[in-house]
């Protein structure tokens, strides 16, 4: 009978119309500024540098090894190595970046730098309200540095795993150091 399909379609949208008043599955709008969806734990936007302790610049984990600069697909990271060496969390003397710029206009937040970084010093942030009125979109070391505490907040499971590995290495290094003097004094 001509029109039966049209009627079934009308019934379908009718059911949706009535359903939208009582069935949450049929009204899926999130009114953005007032209601906000809880951010996913794995979400990633622009990268940031992790620092330990209190002082953002001194506590940076980054050792300016420029692996991320080479591997970045969009070539948006620029690193200038500092001349003086400073001890890192294992006591080894490491360089530190004098200049660490990320051009936020070029970065496509792909996360490749996080994967290739051997020192867990660069991680992906989760903040996505990045609109600003200034055109200064080249993020310098100062704007990039964020505390490990903040990192543990936004990516709990990942941060816990990273911290556990670092503590393990620190413990092994300290145990090696404690055992080392015994060998030196025959």
């Amino acid at each position: 009978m001509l029109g039966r399909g049209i009627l079934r379609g009308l019934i379908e949208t009718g059911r949706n119309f009535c359903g939208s008043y009582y069935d949450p599955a049929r009204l899926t709008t999130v009114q953005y500024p007032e209601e906000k969806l809880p951010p996913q734990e794995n979400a990633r936007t622009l990268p940031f540098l992790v620092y330990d302790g209190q002082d953002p610049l001194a506590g940076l984990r980054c050792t300016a090894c420029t692996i991320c600069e080479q591997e970045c697909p969009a070539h948006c990271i620029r690193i200038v190595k500092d001349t003086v060496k400073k001890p890192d969390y294992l006591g080894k003397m490491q360089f530190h970046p004098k200049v660490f710029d990320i051009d936020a206009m070029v970065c496509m937040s792909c996360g490749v730098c996080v994967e290739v970084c051997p020192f867990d010093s660069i991680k992906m942030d989760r903040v996505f309200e990045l609109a600003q009125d200034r055109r200064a979109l080249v993020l310098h070391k100062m704007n990039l540095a964020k505390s490990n505490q903040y990192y543990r907040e936004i990516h709990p499971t990942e941060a816990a795993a990273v911290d556990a590995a670092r503590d393990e290495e620190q413990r092994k290094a300290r145990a090696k150091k404690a055992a080392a003097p015994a060998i030196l004094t025959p």
Partner: protein
Amino acid sequence: MIAPPAELPAPGRVGWADHDLLEVAMGPHHPSTHGVFRMNVVLDGESVAKLTPIFGFLHRNHEKIAERNSYLAAIPYTDRLDYICSMTNNWAYVLTVEKLAGLPVPDRAEYIRVIVGEFTRLFNHACMAGFLLQDMGALGTPLMYAFREREKILDLFEALSGSRMMCNYLRFGGVRCDLPGGWREQAAGVAAAFHPFLDQFEALLSENEILRARTQGVGVLPPALAVNAGVTGPGLRASGVNYDIRKVDQYGIYNRFKFRVPLGARGGDVFDRYMVRILEMRESLAILEQALRDIPEGVFLDPKAKLRNLRPKAGEAYGRIEAPKGELGFYLISDGGPAPYRYRIRPPSLVNLTVLEDMCLGHAIADVVIILGSIDIVLGEVDR
């Protein structure tokens, strides 16, 4: 058409003197061309006399970029090829590099790849049906239904890979990270909720007389022309040719799943292409249920897989997968260096457009829009 007064510029007068033909440029700034795609349509009254597609508006020379960067650095760029199905783009590229370098892939990673690949096919076909109806004038209701389901799947992808559309999730020899806790149950829930959505979608559309009147017998693609013109994917199967790369190449672990390949019933018109995609969605759901049920535990990335300086031996490889839009292939030539010597993408959308003019000749201008919608192209992949 009444001749315009002499002093006014003659609108688009075409060479054919004897016929009053009207040359209309549809696109690139046109509401229904699925991106920046332009068609110069020569109209004889309302029916199409000639149609020339024009591409290149979204050309970023992705292949040149990939030939300058390392193998790993090309993966985030493959997300931007067919920007609706980023996971399957990654898969095609990673599959080819694994073929080129001979890298083994653990079982759990293969299962994860099938799961995310089939999820991508689900919402790609749903979006295609939604956009097709939008072109037909159904004010976005089917599109909104399709997008509502797509949002659920994109949330799963964001929980898994970090980003909704630009997933950058697959790596050579596996996947970037394991399934987060509870993801499998959520995914099973979303897959289960997809059946009622499909019934709702079919109730709204497949029976609709206006939809059938507008699409049956429109844009018929004969099988012989389809094969010769290299049309692949649901468009080819709608013409009755049984060629699904998941069954032909059996890449990944598709031979472990039981699923059927729907074929067109009436020689491949727009309605067939629409219905084949709807039936394919049900098959993808069947695969998803099987994959989610028996995904094994174990390592998700081959331990020996080198992430950074992967330098495959000199040689070449052509790998291809059944992407939602057709056969997506990658052809890599390596000269032993860190970057591919030649990096070529076989775009299903571009090759499927070869037959656009053949299907549109003689149809009304309203049908041209629907035929283009039924081919399901994405300009990121056409122009690369």
